[in-house]
């Protein structure tokens, strides 16, 4: 499903559920119900009456919707912070205060994967954990940003699209609960404010263990040749 260009302050919740209001969880409630998600908790909920089960389903939908309050502009900026060109511009503008650099970013795709979870407690005891996965793919056709004093101070142009998918890990395989796609206008979704600090290339952007670090320049390993020779010997 593709809709028109979206407005400012776009969150994953807006993207997947629409209005972003408190009562926007109808689609999620229905998806959870259709997939019999509460069955995943096993017989622990067998004592629930029909009304109680419906209430539990509603509460799970509300909790899951809360996990979608992610600003897509923030996601994009977080990914951009590791881009070499922006890091170079940050370093150059820090070296020469007042200098302004306009960086045109090539067409690129930002994939952001989130793994939120909701613990289900029955009489105060955790009996099950619902593991969700939120996949956001932002495809940026063109973007031009301005860097000054080591900070991203403006987004001058740029458009693209975003797709979001919320899945729930189920014993029989992942269940896709929600999926939406939209066109985006970058300077509408990114809130620059007083500027966003960028790491210069002298700094190491923090990366999670075990994950590929975009834009990293780890360099070579000087001891590699000798290691190969020693193992082969």
């Amino acid at each position, binding site marked *: 499903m593709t809709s028109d260009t979206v407005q400012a302050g776009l969150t994953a919740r807006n993207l997947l559920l629409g209005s972003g209001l408190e009562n926007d969880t109808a689609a999620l409630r229905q998806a959870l119900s259709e997939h019999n998600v509460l069955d995943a908790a096993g017989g622990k909920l067998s004592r629930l009456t029909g009304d109680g089960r419906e209430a539990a389903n509603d509460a799970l939908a509300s909790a899951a919707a809360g996990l979608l*309050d*992610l600003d897509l502009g923030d996601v994009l900026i977080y990914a951009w912070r590791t881009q070499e060109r922006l890091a170079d511009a940050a370093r150059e503008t820090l070296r020469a205060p007042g200098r302004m650099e306009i960086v045109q970013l090539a067409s690129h795709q930002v994939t952001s994967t989130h793994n939120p979870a909701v613990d289900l407690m029955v009489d105060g005891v955790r009996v099950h954990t619902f593991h969700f996965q*939120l996949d956001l793919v932002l495809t940026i056709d063109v973007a031009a940003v301005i860097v000054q004093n080591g900070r991203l101070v403006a987004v001058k142009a740029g458009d693209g699209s975003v797709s979001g998918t919320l899945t729930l890990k189920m014993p029989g395989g*992942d269940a896709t609960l929600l999926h939406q796609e939209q066109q985006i206008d970058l300077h509408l979704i990114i809130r620059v404010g007083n500027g966003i600090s960028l790491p210069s290339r002298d700094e190491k952007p923090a990366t999670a263990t075990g994950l590929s670090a975009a834009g990293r320049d780890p*360099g070579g390993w000087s001891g590699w040749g000798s290691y190969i020779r020693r193992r082969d010997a």
Partner: protein
Amino acid sequence: MLRTRTTVCTGAAMERLKRFTRELVVVSAATCWVLVVAHPTLASTLAVAPTPTLTAIPTSAYPGDQIKINGTAFWPCEDTSDTTNVMVFWDEGDPTTWTGLGGGFSGDLAIPSDASAGFHQVTAACYDPQARTVTSHTLASAEVQVLQQPALQLSSSEGAAGDGVTVAGTGFGQCAGKGLGDSVQLLWDASTLGGAVGLDGNGAFSVDVTVPAAATAGSGHTVAAECYDPAAGSATSGVLARALFSVTSPTSPTSPASTSPTSPTSPASTSPTSPTSTTSSPTVIAGQPSTPSGGRWSPVALTVGLGGSLAVVVVLLAGLLAMHARARPRNSSWVHQHLRTVAQPLDAAPANSRIHSRPGTAPLSIGLEPHPDRPGNQQVKEITP
């Protein structure tokens, strides 16, 4: 010798050297060189590098599941900034690049959704992110068993309440062993269906069950199975598999009235003291006499014919009048004469305000605790035209 020293005075060897000297000396690259030159035998001791190891947790999972992969001692994959760059493969395919620190790395690996049941290999090799190429052969591997997806088969997908159905389950290997009880519990919708069912060595079972007598007719009923520990008396997993079942209405329904051979005959109706008996439309009214007889209230029946209908109408009218009189508003003097209020001390209230559970319902509190993942994991990929 130079090569040996170079090999020795890096990475893990330095750590071993610290342990070797029990941290009595400050270990630096220069110290290492001095020690190796002074004691050549030390070089060979330190050169025994630990083998790169790959561990999968858990070692068995279903297609689509995520497992954790830990790598240790991948020193050859370290760059000058201690970053470990590796390429991880699933059965020598599906390459993904991972990074870590100090020769170690850790992360989640999704088992391909189309992975076949059986044993598979996760392997890792060094990776050069600049050259975007693998720079070593496989350094370590871990074996992962892909489990067969649990499934339920019913001998029939529909039947009436009380009918027998055979339920066969396969792929419940995860319920076996590991202290989980080697059993499954079947569920009818959300209620238990029969007792615990034992598994064979292949994680399979077959059992005859009866469609609950109270099952309502209609489709959408579910037979499900979950791991169960009979000793603990509780489920040890969520629902692993389910099958749909339709409950049909009983064939050739027979009401109890129509099948009843004869209407029960009350002793009163056969009482020899029945005053009258007519042949047309007998009406039986059971009641109590207005006066005790012999100290006991004995039921009597009055059988009347058409002639008695008038009496019945009179009795009904009298009853209606009595009801109307009871519902009539009373004036204040009547209330004062017939009613009085007694103050109840407050401390008596708790004794009278106990909550009694109704049979069939049990108190239950449900809590939901969300755990957001706001940072997530980002990857940026340039799109080449």
